[in-house]
């Protein structure tokens, strides 16, 4: 077997940026290679340098960056080559896909023009020929009506469609290497599945190698052949995907894998959080940058940064940068051996059966419609958006309800309606047994003590000009808690969320993302509420930090007897933390019930698709999975399909039903039917739910 030449060889790549507070070493000596036709995954959190290293390969960094090292593509050295020569390679033999397709496409040119531009830079073809190629590419990328859509502007496409356009642009010239920088991070999970599927097709069609950069290990488990983990600007582990997932030898990797909630986890499986947060890249101390967070640290870790060492027990080439990697390999240490896991805690209330507990929140047939205003200058009403179109929710004391759905399903509107405590346009909201329609302003003000909220982005939900003490005091001041009691309570709250009392005078910018979210949680608990509404509380945090916050939330719930309305799009997080779940689609709840029942045996096709699209950080299972790829995009909430709203994308509708059955789906709007054994907590809104006749 002849030794194949690597397509891309990166050796000792270093990138440093000057900044106001000193030099930022974004990439510190990174070496890897990519073979033709293979998929290399680069995983890491913020500050790991994963994106910067790829931008350096493409020569797209700003002029202020200092780059050193070597990058060889098909044997040619790329670093130091001038812009003119590099532009011949870029877009032709190496192409790149970016994270946010809205900002990555020029808003003033049509999509067709932009793709045609990519073609005509590298191929000497006429305008017409380029346009024909554009239509071909759009068709291959799965965009309906390609010739028409080529004349549309980027803002007229949905997020998933825009990313398809970017992929079309990237394969226009049959590249040898495609670098995909977080291509699906901004997308919903079912759309993500579509795009990953498309990337796979693109790879097969062009034979290109792909470098896939992401923070989501689950995505890489099913997609990558080889995988590298980056931390603080360096590679800490690199190897075949099975080796890295099943035989990780670097404590960071081990901890990371243990801290990710899994969709297939047994109930009550604890998460192992990694303490601390990724370091800042200015003035890094000597030694291994993971030391402050590593439970296995020894003296040498603080002095010397480890080199990549080969692991012998692995099938393929597996390198790990840790002083104790040999020991880890020898003893085959797993996550639970290295990182302390928290035991599952439950409160007394949870031991009571559900029916016996007091209802904390009850929503009946809630509807919220918005007028659709179009045009920025000529603003006029052109329709109605049926954001929430008749939902029922029921949360009891000591219970967590997970509200799951993708963007546009109406979950944000739902929680804003609940928190507004106003009389809804239609339906009713009852908080702690009191109907909001019957409340006076005074009542509402009182009830606000019982229900509070934690939002997704901790930086955006705190006023950056207030110190922590003021932030925590604000709810108490508003509700007239006397000063003495306030300061005592502030100390209590900080302790409850794992922060130190000295932190009261600090400002939010001085904290890490995870700490800030803890401040938000503390603020939400200031007035001892009964119900906490959490809107994607961990999605904006780094992966290694999420586990800590999730554990905290569970602990607080048990200790304080809280109920949670937990809104999220990440199903594995929802499974981990919720007792019950409700799945939303286009303003309706399509399936609801006990979380284990729903996730183990989903009845509604949408839930099935969601679950099949949720990435699993388990390569064998990922490869064996049968993925359900939904067709097309979410219909417009202003114009929902007749009958069952999901029918336009439903895999069952498309593949399994006969014509008369389909007619039922078109004509009759399904309601939530009980599913499975009577009395079991599981309902689905589907005429042909799985497992039913």
């Amino acid at each position: 077997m002849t030794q194949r030449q690597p397509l891309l060889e990166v050796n000792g790549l270093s990138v440093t940026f000057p900044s106001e507070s000193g030099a930022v070493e974004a990439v510190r000596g990174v070496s890897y290679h990519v073979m033709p036709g293979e998929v290399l995954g680069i995983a890491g959190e913020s500050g790991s340098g994963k994106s910067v290293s790829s931008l350096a390969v493409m020569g797209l960094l700003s002029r202020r960056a200092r780059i050193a090292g070597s990058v060889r593509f098909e044997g040619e050295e790329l670093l130091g080559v001038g812009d003119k020569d590099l532009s011949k390679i870029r877009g032709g033999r190496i192409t790149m896909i970016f994270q946010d397709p809205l900002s990555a496409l020029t808003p003033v040119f049509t999509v067709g023009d932009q793709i045609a531009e990519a073609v005509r830079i590298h191929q000497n073809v006429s305008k017409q020929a380029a346009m024909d190629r554009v239509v071909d590419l759009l068709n291959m990328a799965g965009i309906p009506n390609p010739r028409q859509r080529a004349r549309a502007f980027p803002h007229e496409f949905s997020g998933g469609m825009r990313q398809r356009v970017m992929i079309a642009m990237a394969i226009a010239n049959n590249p040898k290497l495609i670098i995909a920088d977080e291509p699906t991070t901004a997308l919903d999970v079912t759309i993500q599945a579509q795009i990953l599927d498309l990337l796979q097709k693109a790879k097969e069609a062009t034979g290109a190698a792909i470098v896939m950069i992401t923070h989501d290990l689950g995505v890489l488990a099913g997609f990558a052949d080889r995988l590298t983990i980056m931390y603080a600007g360096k590679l800490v582990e690199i190897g075949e995907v099975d080796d890295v997932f099943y035989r990780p030898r670097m404590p960071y990797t081990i901890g990371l894998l243990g801290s990710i909630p899994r969709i297939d986890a047994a109930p009550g499986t604890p998460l192992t959080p990694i303490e601390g947060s990724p370091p800042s890249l200015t003035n890094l101390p000597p030694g291994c940058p993971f030391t402050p967070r590593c439970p296995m640290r020894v003296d040498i870790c603080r002095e010397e940064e480890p080199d990549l060492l080969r692991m012998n027990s692995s099938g393929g080439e597996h390198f790990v940068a840790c002083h104790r990697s040999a020991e880890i390999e020898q003893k085959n240490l797993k996550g639970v051996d290295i990182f302390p896991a928290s035991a599952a805690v439950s409160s007394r209330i949870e031991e009571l059966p559900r029916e016996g507990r007091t209802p904390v929140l009850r929503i009946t047939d809630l509807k919220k419609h918005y007028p659709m205003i179009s045009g920025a200058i000529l603003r006029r009403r052109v329709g109605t958006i049926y954001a929430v179109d008749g939902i029922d929710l029921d949360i009891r004391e000591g219970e967590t309800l997970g509200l799951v759905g993708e963007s546009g399903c109406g979950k944000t509107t739902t929680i804003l309606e609940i928190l507004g405590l106003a009389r809804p346009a239609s339906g009713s909201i009852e908080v702690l047994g009191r109907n909001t329609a019957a409340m006076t302003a005074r009542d509402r003000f009182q009830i606000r003590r019982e229900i509070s909220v934690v939002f997704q982005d901790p930086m955006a939900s705190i006023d950056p000009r207030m110190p922590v003490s003021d932030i925590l005091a604000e709810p108490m001041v508003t509700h007239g808690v006397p000063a003495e009691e306030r300061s005592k309570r502030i100390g209590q709250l900080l302790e409850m969320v794992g922060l130190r009392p000295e932190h009261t005078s600090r400002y939010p910018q001085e904290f890490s993302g995870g700490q800030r979210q803890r401040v938000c949680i503390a603020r939400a608990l200031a007035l001892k509420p009964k119900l906490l509404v959490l809107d994607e509380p961990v999605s904006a945090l780094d992966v290694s930090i999420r586990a800590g916050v999730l554990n905290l939330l569970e602990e607080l719930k048990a200790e304080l007897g809280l109920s949670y309305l937990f809104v999220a799009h990440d199903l594995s997080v929802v499974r981990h933390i919720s007792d019950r779940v409700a799945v939303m689609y286009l303003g309706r709840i399509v399936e609801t019930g006990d979380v284990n029942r729903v996730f183990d045996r989903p009845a509604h096709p949408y839930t099935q698709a969601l679950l099949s699209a949720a990435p699993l950080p388990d390569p064998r299972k990922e490869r064996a999975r049968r993925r359900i790829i939904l067709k097309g995009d979410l219909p417009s909430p202003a114009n929902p399909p007749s009958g069952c709203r999901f029918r336009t994308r439903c895999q069952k509708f498309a593949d399994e039903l006969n014509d008369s059955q389909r007619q039922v789906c078109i004509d009759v709007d399904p309601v939530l039917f009980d599913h499975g054994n009577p009395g079991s907590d599981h309902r689905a809104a589907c005429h042909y739910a799985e497992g039913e006749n």
Partner: protein
Amino acid sequence: MSSYNGGLGIFLLRRVVYLAVVVLIATSANYFLAATALNPRSNFEGRNPPPPPAVVDEQLTSLNLNDKTPVVERFGRWADGVWHGNLGLTIDHESVNAEMRRRVGVSLRLLLIGSLLGCFCGIAAGAWSAVNQYEFSDHAMTILSFVILSVPTVVLAVFLANAGSSFNDAIGHRLVYNTGEYTPGLEAWTSADIVNRLQHLVLPSLVLILQGLAFYSRYQRNSMLDAVGSDFVRTAQAKGLRRPQALIRHALRTALIPMGTFFAYEFTLIFIGSIFVEKIFSWHGMGEWFVQSIQKNDVNATAAIGMFVAVLVLFAGFLSDVVTVLLDPRIRRT
């Protein structure tokens, strides 16, 4: 949707009505203010010998300027005239319509070339600055713009007028003129006349060009810088465009979008800014009239000019909307 066009039509109508109402209110407010605060009677009483009161009253009434008539009545007469297209009489018994037509022409001839050139040079200079950020040319341009923007139009005009004179003295020949629109006596619109007019136009236009250069280059630079650092320029480069190409094709085009609004407002409001240029260079356009009508207590003229300005501002807003729609496809189809 079948109601789409109907809805659009009705909507435009509503907007036009709203704008018309605003103009109406503004114009009326102008009239009332002018009619009450100005004192045309004092013009007559200041003469030597002072005319008898009856004569004064008659004169004032014939001009619809008599302060003994209730304001509302005077307004009624004026408004009635305006509705029929007649803006009334100036305090010198001339037709306001004719005077305005003449003076608008003068101002247009004064401002058109200078402002267009200023805008064009400014945008080019701004784009150039942005592409060469922090280099010498960028710094020089920034400093120049700064200084120019800090000089009041009056001072700039006086300075250039004097510079022109000194220039003439230096070359011993009167090349540029700093007084008036043209030298009287030449037959209108012959080549000699045109050259003469251009000679008169150079200095005042220079004021406008310099100011335009300074103003537009700063805003265009900022706009370009935003575009230059954006993700889509990076994508353009990733496709294989060289940096200069990517900047011109993608960044510049996108950076022009906000400039449309600026240009629309600046261009239309420059009429008002011309009061200084017209005063210093003695051009008899709208700007000069603007000031004179107040100084002469000419109520009808003042009210007419107020209306003119109101219409101009609204036109500016309308124009900026149109330009934005033309330049920015995101607004076009939503």
